């Protein structure tokens, strides 16, 4: 094996190039810091030139724009990312029901027509209060009622706070759907509509692809993206920066363009969680729809035809 100094230098180089990797995506490398942690060294090295004209040796694996992450076993997927506590903040004052989050999410998770993991709800709390748009994802509760009732550990709570579903284990009893007060869960009643290559893909709980007939699915906070150092699809797709995603252990959240200290944001804007009285302890926080960027009515045009019918 190589001596210590080389491997240390390699380690440094790994850190730098992990930054490069994240820089490749159009977003402003949101997960800079730890994206490289899981990259597998190939053992092959190349020689490169530094700014000062020095020659530096480094592992080939870090040269790819997107590093190859090792495939994760089911038991690793069930454990989650160590040291993380993911959370989301949804700023209701910025939402005008554009629906880009939904489209991006549905596409990324290969949902069948009619299915939505994110539902942008038209809310009005009382007769004379102001209506507003409320994007609703899975709340990834810390006391998840859906996980409590699952008879087979098919839905589970990970150490990074995410609640996932293992569609290879789910028996399709739908008790979790009845238990979820946020009605966030979606069922594959028939054979999912998938392209052949997607359908043949190896199933992973983290990507939730491919969807499986007779099993439950829901918003998964895109843990596969987090592992790659990227933001969930809804966060990066939203043109108005409604969604903020981050790690509570780091006390910060970002929507890609802006980064806030989570505790300050929640304090300053009086953040709250849905149905606090049920004791589910959601990991999704909402900022109230005050000082809005858009009038409520401007979102009505984007409403889906089915919902227009039922109002």
């Amino acid at each position, binding site marked *: 094996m190589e001596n210590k100094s080389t491997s240390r230098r390699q380690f440094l180089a790994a850190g730098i190039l992990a930054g490069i990797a994240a820089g490749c995506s159009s977003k402003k490398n949101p997960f800079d810091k730890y994206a490289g942690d899981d990259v597998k060294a190939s053992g092959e090295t190349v020689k490169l030139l530094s700014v000062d004209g020095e020659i530096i040796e480094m592992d080939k694996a870090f040269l790819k724009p997107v590093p190859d992450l090792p495939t994760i076993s089911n038991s690793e997927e069930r454990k989650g990312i160590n040291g993380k506590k993911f959370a989301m903040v949804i700023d209701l004052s910025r939402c005008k029901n554009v629906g880009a989050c939904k489209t991006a999410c549905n596409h990324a998770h290969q949902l069948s027509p009619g299915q939505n993991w994110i539902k942008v709800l038209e809310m009005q709390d009382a007769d004379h209060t102001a209506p507003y748009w409320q994007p609703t994802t899975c709340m990834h509760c810390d006391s998840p009622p859906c996980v409590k009732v699952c008879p*087979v550990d098919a839905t589970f709570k990970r150490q990074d706070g995410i609640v996932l579903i293992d569609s290879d284990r789910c028996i399709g009893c739908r008790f979790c759907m009845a238990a979820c007060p946020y009605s966030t869960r979606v069922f*594959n009643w028939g054979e999912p509509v998938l392209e052949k290559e997607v359908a043949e893909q190896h199933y992973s709980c983290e990507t939730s692809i491919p969807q499986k007939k*007779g099993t439950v699915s829901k918003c998964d906070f895109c843990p596969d993206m987090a592992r790659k150092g990227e933001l969930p699809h809804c966060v990066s797709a939203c043109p108005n920066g409604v969604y903020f995603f981050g790690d509570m252990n780091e006390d910060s959240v970002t929507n890609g363009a802006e980064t806030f200290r989570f505790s300050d944001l929640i304090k300053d804007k009086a953040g709250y969680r849905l149905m606090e009285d049920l004791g589910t302890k959601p990991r999704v926080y909402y900022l109230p729809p005050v000082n809005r960027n858009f009038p409520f009515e401007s979102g009505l045009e984007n409403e889906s035809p089915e919902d227009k019918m039922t109002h």
Partner: protein
Amino acid sequence: MENSTVLTSEQITSDLLPQKFGKRGMIWTGILLLFCAFGAFAYYRQLKYGLVVTNMRDYVSWGIYISNFVFFVAISLVGSLITAIFRLANVPWRTPLTRISEIIAVSAITFAALIIIVDMGRPERLLNLFIHGRLQSPIIWDVIVISTYFCLSLFLLYITLLPDISILINAREKLGKPFSKLYRWLASYWKGTTAQEKIRNRCITIICIVIIPVAFSIHTVTSWLFATTYRPGWDSTNFGAYFISGAFLVGAGGVVVAMYIFRRYYNLEKYITEKHFEKMGRVVVLLALLYLYFNINEYLVPAFKMKKPEEAHLTQLFAGEYAPLFWFAILVGMIIPIFIMLFKKGRKPLPMFIAGVMVVVGAWFKRYLIVTPTLLHPFLPMEDVPASYHHYFPSWEEWAIAMGSLAGVLLIITFFARVFPIISIYKTLTDKNETQQSS
């Protein structure tokens, strides 16, 4: 008993021996088989295409399969009521009713288990319940208690059958060959010695004691499948007792209906007498009042407060889309039967039969009302889903499977009555001897 005193032992035995299907029996069985086959075909389609053949969708994710399941679990409680409670309370007139109630219990609990598999999106993963079973989930509690109750009910049925099968073995010339092998396999060891009789009696007593809490738990746990969620209409501490009182009512109603039919078509007027109807009528009235009491509790208290999530649900039931069904279930399932059976004339066999049918039909719809309207009233508005998700009416496949399962229960009972005496011969004979001795 005034009627049985005039009967000789030989007559009792020959009256109560299982009879071959007559023409009517054949038609009846044929119709049931047709229903079952149709249900099986519907289930084949469901297996092939998935649960999409049902009209259940993301909001109404449980439909008539689950309400049918609750109905079956409810009606199966009657086995413990008539046999165990009546035995422990030493109710003298129970003899002709016990076996009927036991076979209703066994067949209903069998189909309860089957219908829950039908409801699963991935029935082929049934074994996951045992490989990955999670004790925190009320479904696992239900799996445990239902399988326990099934075993206990079957055991009770078998052990009370023992002396009768022995009689059937001895009556081979009369019965012919068809089931003689089965009889011998089941009970050839039964000689009716005092030692054997002593053990058997003790076993029955033990089962009767054990089966009561197990029966209570099957329906309590079934109610917890709903009550452990936050949903309006389900989130109730009253649910266990509410379900059990309802179960006793529908079970008793079912026994009344079965009593009438067996009495009529097996010519058992001398055994299931008007007196039995009279007594059962009183029992049913009591149970109906009890269930009515729990219903008032269940609806009046939340309606008094009208919490926002409950409001939409309750107004739908009282005056909205589900109002006709709701008032039908309350009136036909409870109030009208109570009024029929409060009067002595109403406790005659025919009005009792009608009241029993009303109780059972009302109870079936009641279960539907417990499951479905709640699911249509979630906490957050129903949006961003296809329009069809906002309503629920079962598809023909669901109806076919539900009706097929009901037919299946009746089929098991019918076949059972073909093979075994539906009234215990042995017990009727002992009762006769006892009354003769005491008189």
